């Protein structure tokens, strides 16, 4: 068979991605589609095998928002913590990355430490760390320190301790982001800084006028990563709830949790797209203009 170069090239490309296409179809697209289909039925594990379930329309969705007293609070909680966590994680990881790229001895050691949570940050393990140790995790654990703080904070003390534990938890989730920022910072052309210096720009304005714009695509990546990460997190209450509804309640209802999954997925999808559209207006790519 005779093919032009372009055709042959296209064919080869398809061959390379073919295994993935098959996998995508079997392990992703079909399940996703079936999930949509199942979410409008009253299927249970026993009925899904022989197909003797019936379509109930949007009833599952209505139930999620009107009957279920747990789902909506979990959803709101997730959104709430996302709104707080994402900026904190981004600001923290950017600050740490800026510190870590400074020419200094022992830099590599710090970088290795910052990445540690990614490696051992297994859900179960981190869960142990933070559940078990409880408020021991607070940076100052001693009684004296707590007494001292009590003088100032009074009854607010538990909230404060809670806040600190939570911030440790949040910071522990920023390992990947720190690393991505470090890589981004390193890719900025140093001559830009030299030029700015010659023109007498202060470090402050160099940060706002060079570092931040050059870093904007990386910031977009990091925002997206952080959102996805916290939406698929083991500790995410919505996901846990879906899992409980599916696998631990005795009837093994499948239709209803499917609907919950769909609602959740649509929410994530919408949010990512909105943020992408919004943030990409402020990103600057070097190739352009």
């Amino acid at each position, binding site marked *: 068979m005779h093919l032009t170069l372009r055709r042959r090239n296209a064919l080869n490309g398809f061959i390379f991605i073919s295994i993935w296409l098959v996998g*995508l179809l079997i392990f992703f697209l079909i399940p996703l589609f079936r999930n949509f289909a199942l979410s409008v039925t009253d299927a249970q594990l026993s009925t899904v095998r022989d197909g003797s379930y019936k379509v109930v329309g949007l009833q599952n969705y209505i139930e999620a928002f009107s009957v279920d007293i747990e789902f909506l609070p979990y959803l709101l909680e997730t959104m709430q913590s996302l709104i707080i966590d994402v900026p904190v994680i981004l600001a923290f990881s950017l600050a740490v990355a800026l510190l*870590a790229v400074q020419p*200094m001895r022992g830099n590599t050691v710090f970088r290795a430490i*910052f990445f540690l949570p990614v490696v051992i940050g*297994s859900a179960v393990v981190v869960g142990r760390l933070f559940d078990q140790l409880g408020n021991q995790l607070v940076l100052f654990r001693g009684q004296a320190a707590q007494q001292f703080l009590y003088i100032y904070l009074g009854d607010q003390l538990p909230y404060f301790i809670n806040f600190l534990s939570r911030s440790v938890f949040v910071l*522990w989730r920023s390992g990947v982001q720190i690393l991505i920022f470090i*890589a981004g910072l390193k890719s900025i052309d140093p001559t830009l800084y030299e030029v700015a210096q010659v023109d007498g720009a202060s470090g402050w304005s160099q940060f706002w006028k060079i570092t931040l714009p050059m870093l904007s695509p990386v910031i977009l990546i990091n925002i997206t990563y952080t959102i996805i990460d916290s939406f*698929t997190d083991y500790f995410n209450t919505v996901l846990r709830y879906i899992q409980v509804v599916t696998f631990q309640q005795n009837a093994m209802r499948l239709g209803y949790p499917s609907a919950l999954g769909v609602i959740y997925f649509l929410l994530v999808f919408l949010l990512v797209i909105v943020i992408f559209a919004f943030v990409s207006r402020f990103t600057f790519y070097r190739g352009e203009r």
Partner: protein
Amino acid sequence: MKAPFTLFTARAYLNWFKGRRARSLIVKIIMLLLLVDVAYIFVMPILRLLSTSLMNVMDLYDPTVVWLPRRWAFENYSQAYTALAYGEAFRNTVLISGACAILQTLACALVGYGFARFKFPGRDRLFYLVLFAMIVPPHAIIIQLFVMVSKNHWLETYYPFLVPSAFGMGLRGALFVFIYRQFFKGLPWELEDAAMIDGASPLRVFYNIMLPLARPAILVVFLFSFVWHWNDSLEPSIYLSRPELFFMPQRLSVVEAALSNMRLRAMWGTGTIMAATLLTILPLVVLYVFTQRYFIESIERTGLID
């Protein structure tokens, strides 16, 4: 003087202060302190874990014992080792995480190469599917996967982990495809052109030229995949229910659940759970210590950022 925020551009800063070594020294010390502070936040939970894992019940409830236990309770570790069935769990986890990681590393490399270096109709739209697959939470499809797996009689086997990995899917497969694609995109075209002119087939070009060059990307993907499979608890908890098949984090959950019985906990203490937790992550820490240099260098060089 416009100085305080020059932390952000130390290069500029250091030039500015050339000849004023004392001041630059102070800045350096402040930066070092900040870094040590942050590093402390990252290391502290692990140190706390280590310290608690060596405490017996007496020490745990004694407020005067802060970091160092009065009596080193090494028996926590032997108890944890037995409770975890460590040998068996270790073997399961290493074998399956390793196999999945190898399969994913290879399959995703092929796919990423296909996306990066060939032009075919619909390529960019298909690549949007990669991104799409990346952001769909696994819970949106896990019920269907469960139904599929149980129809295939794959429950209580390792196939549900191995087969998707072989197809470049599996745990965060889309992310790995994305990493490879970014990496291969950055390589010069002349390499392939030269080999093609010499008559090499695309598969041969891929195997003999591109793969050896892709070592940093391979390393990153393999390690990420290994670590994430090791740490995953969602899929194993759904597909596996026989304890002898369990992976380490699942065993840990079992031990944990058993110890939520208060009387047992009073006997064994939190120390045992902490020791078990430490034993679970120990292999990863060892792996990381040996590979972290390449790991971090590779991430910086993969062009993850583009």
